[in-house]
């Protein structure tokens, strides 16, 4: 009977359907339970604010401001499509712009909300709040963006923040996740672990159109910790305003502790461009700019030290005792070495010159001769001992080591013997010797304090390491007397005198083109890097300032000297409680500083180099 067949078909059909349910509800139950949970619960991050940065007196250098990002919930794409025109209209975007934003995040999983507008204006916020019920696909995410109350001041040292890269996520041992904001350079990167907080999580129950209908337990965000820097805002402001339109760097350091009091690198970038994700075109421009605004010249600029290197030479001479202390040279404005003529910066010559006079007047012929007598081996050893050719260990990423050439180095890199003539060039800080401003600061501090090479640092409570390269009392006394004379005995820095301060220093003017090459082309090299490293007091300096002005044709004492003097003066003015109000209020133009200089009898008028 065919009806019986149909009965069996019915039983078989029900059995087959029950088998289907059994597979879903018994066999795969756990998997589907998880999926149901994922549907039900949406985790919205609570972004932890980054720690702020304060100067040594607690003044804010970097902090945050609250901002809202507009999130688009894309759980149901067809639903989203429907609202787009209304959303574009409400957020003041064109429909195309909005679609572009969405397309840009195409690769992200669909259940993850995307940011369609990183900085919501008050009217955007009002729009979202008032349309909560009829546009359920919009959500606001509170974020904290970096605020730089002093513009680009200290930008190179502070660095910038940005979205974590895939490699960083991988290397972080799952501490970082995609989308996190991390320090990409400078202090932001160096102390990222301290500055970065731990994001919290708001877990909410949502319905099928993504509307929040309930809350689960909340995990609060742990804010990042603030860091106190060794920077003195007042000194920073002085250095910064002088450097505003120049190319170069200034570093001021406490010679006893290694605390960095000011650090300027120009030209620089505006860190606020990075606060809300930088457009890629702008990023390209910054990186390909020939003036290298992304370079922190204070620690990454590797330049010929010029005559500042003569301090190393003097130290080598006195310490090695390879030549007698009363070693003197007659400077006729030029001298012959290895069949070639080397010129002194002063064509008329300095006449009979001993070490003290050689430092004060920066006599090239004296140091050429001294270099020939010492040989590259000794020069290299003392330069290396004073920190050249290796990193100072400052707490900033990307520090360069500079270069202190030696016979061994030439052999290793160029596979030929040392040219004896090169020693003559190195003796006045030319040739292949290259240093960073921070190395020069540390070297001068070490020479003046008897050989303690402190670790420069920007974090206030960092316990700095100190390398020792002991120098004899006689050496320190003679060399520092020389540097005192540079400013106070009519030397190359005589225009920089400060009253009641044992302001000492050494100028340097490094040719970007060698004398020889310049002579061959029938002229003196014009483009120079002007250096000045000044400090006070003469022995055991409290403050050491190095400044380099790039691409000027002037002497280092003229171009770089004034800023060093201004910073040292500001330091002492502050110390003695006389700091002029005008120096504390931020001046973004140079004339403000000059006005101060004119009023103050302790500061001599800036004069052209003799």
């Amino acid at each position, binding site marked *: 009977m065919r009806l019986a067949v149909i009965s069996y078909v*019915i039983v078989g059909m029900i059995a087959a359907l029950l088998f289907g349910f059994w597979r879903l509800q018994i066999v795969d139950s756990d998997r589907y339970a998880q999926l*149901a949970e994922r549907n*039900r619960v949406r985790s919205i991050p609570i972004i932890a604010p980054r720690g702020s940065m304060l100067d040594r007196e607690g003044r804010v250098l970097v902090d945050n401001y609250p901002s809202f990002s507009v999130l688009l919930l894309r759980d149901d794409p067809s639903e989203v499509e429907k609202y787009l025109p209304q959303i574009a209209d409400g957020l003041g975007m064109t429909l195309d712009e909005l679609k572009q934003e969405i397309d840009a995040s195409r690769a992200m999983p669909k259940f993850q909300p995307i940011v369609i507008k990183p900085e919501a204006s008050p009217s955007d916020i009002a729009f979202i709040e008032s349309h909560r019920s009829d546009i359920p696909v919009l959500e606001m995410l509170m974020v904290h963006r970096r605020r730089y109350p002093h513009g680009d001041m200290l930008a190179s040292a502070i660095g910038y923040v940005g979205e974590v890269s895939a490699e960083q996520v991988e290397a972080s041992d799952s501490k970082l996740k995609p989308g996190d904001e991390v320090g990409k350079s400078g202090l932001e990167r160096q102390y990222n672990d301290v500055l970065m907080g731990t994001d919290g999580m708001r877990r909410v129950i949502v319905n099928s159109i993504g509307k929040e209908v309930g809350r689960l337990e909340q995990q609060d965000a742990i804010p990042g910790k603030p860091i106190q820097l060794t920077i003195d805002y007042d000194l920073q402001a002085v250095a910064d305003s002088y450097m505003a339109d120049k190319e170069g760097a200034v570093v001021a350091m406490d010679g006893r502790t290694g605390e960095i009091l000011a650090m300027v690198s120009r030209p620089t970038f505006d860190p606020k461009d990075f606060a809300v994700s930088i457009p890629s075109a702008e990023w390209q421009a910054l990186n390909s700019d020939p003036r290298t605004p992304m370079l922190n010249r204070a620690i990454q600029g590797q330049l010929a030290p010029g005559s500042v290197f003569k301090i190393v030479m003097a130290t080598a001479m006195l310490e090695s005792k390879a030549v007698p202390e009363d070693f003197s040279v007659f400077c006729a404005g030029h001298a012959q070495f290895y069949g070639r003529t080397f010129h002194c910066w002063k064509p008329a010559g300095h006449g009979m010159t001993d070490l003290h006079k050689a430092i004060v007047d920066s006599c090239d012929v004296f140091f050429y001769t001294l270099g020939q007598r010492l040989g590259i081996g000794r020069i290299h050893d003392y330069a290396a001992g004073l920190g050249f050719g290796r990193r100072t260990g400052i707490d900033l990423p990307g520090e360069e080591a500079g270069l202190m050439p030696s016979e061994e180095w030439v052999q290793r890199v160029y596979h030929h013997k040392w040219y004896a003539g090169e020693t003559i060039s190195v003796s006045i800080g030319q040739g292949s010797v290259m240093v960073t401003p921070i190395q020069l600061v540390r070297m001068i501090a070490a020479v003046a304090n008897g050989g303690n090479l402190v670790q420069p640092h920007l974090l206030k409570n960092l316990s700095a390491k100190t390398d020792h390269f002991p120098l004899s009392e006689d050496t320190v006394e003679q060399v520092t007397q020389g540097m005192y004379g540079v400013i106070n005995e009519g030397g190359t820095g005589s225009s920089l005198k400060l009253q009641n301060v044992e302001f000492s220093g050494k100028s340097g003017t490094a040719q970007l083109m060698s004398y020889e090459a310049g002579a061959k082309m029938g002229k003196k090299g014009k483009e120079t890097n002007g250096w000045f490293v000044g400090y006070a007091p003469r022995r055991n300096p409290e403050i050491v300032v190095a400044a380099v002005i790039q691409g000027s044709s002037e002497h280092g004492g003229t171009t770089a000297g004034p800023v060093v003097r201004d910073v040292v003066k500001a330091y002492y003015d502050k110390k003695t409680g006389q700091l002029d109000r005008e120096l504390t209020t931020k001046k973004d133009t140079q004339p403000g500083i000059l006005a101060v200089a004119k009023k103050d009898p302790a500061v001599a008028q800036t004069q052209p180099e003799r």
Partner: protein
Amino acid sequence: MHKSGGFRDYDWWLVVLTFAICGVGVLEIWSATHASYLAGMHKHQLEWIGLGVVLMFLLSRLDYHLIMDQAPILYLIAIVALIAVLALGHSRFGARRWLPILGGLLQVSELVKLIIIIVMARFFSEVRTEQLGLADLLKAGAIVGLPLVLIMKQPDLGTALVLLPLLAIGAFLAGLQWKHGLAILALAAVMVPVGYHFLKPYQKERVTTFLRPEEDPRGAGYQILQSKIAVGSGGFWGKGIGHGSQNQLGFVPVRYSDFILAALAEELGFAGVFIALLLYMFLLLRLVQNAQRANDRAGMFLVMGVAAVLGFHVLVNVAMVIGYMPVTGIPLPLMSYGGSTTLFVFLALGLVMNVRVRRFVN
């Protein structure tokens, strides 16, 4: 012997099974909607059920032979109604399926199903040969084919397909020959790709989604995926009435109607589904038993027509809920919310009762 059956002659087991299924349905409709803007739906459903019960008993009083005598006129009414709905029907969700009747909206295809059951029963009962001849088979095909095409035009592919098992079961019971059966299967195999070509885009999407749901888990595959998640996450005992997150938060699509079994599976678990499907099995077996005991071939075909339509509904709906078949929009009889569909099922059961109470009439 009674002329027409008395009170005791009704199939009370069938009534009990029907009420049990309706009860579960109302409970789940309440659970699925009570916390949303749809709250109160279960009350409407109860009203439909009440009306259905009355219509069921009324229809059972009217001798089915008299009804079958009117088959040609009923068929004509069905075709006219289908053309009317195409011409001036009420459009909802992009399909013209409703006609305004008696101050409400009647889904015409439900009425047509009922009429085609009667028409087919009449047709097959008049085939007096032991084996179904080819001419009769083609004739039956044509009778079903016309309304089928008209329903597909609405478009309502699901309901249109319901007419096919009606034809198949009828032909099978009327002595379908194996060679004809195989020929039809072969023809169908050829026609499927051709037919696919004529589907509406959304219908094609449903088919492709069914075949490859993972390709677009948030788009068209969403419904099936969410349904499976609801079912699977229910586990053995379920999350409890009113506590299914998939159901309560609206992840299960049309959870009070086409996907009501997914909602039930989530909240009452495998245990609940097991009982629900057994109820359906007993209901269908009870129909077959009634067919066996029918007084004549006409009664047998009438009851089996109802069984074919209800069985097909159960199969296609339940298979869809667990992802075994594409989304077709066919409701689960007696459980899904809906006026037209509920009334149709009760009227169909009224036909069964009609046959039942006259089983001893000669």
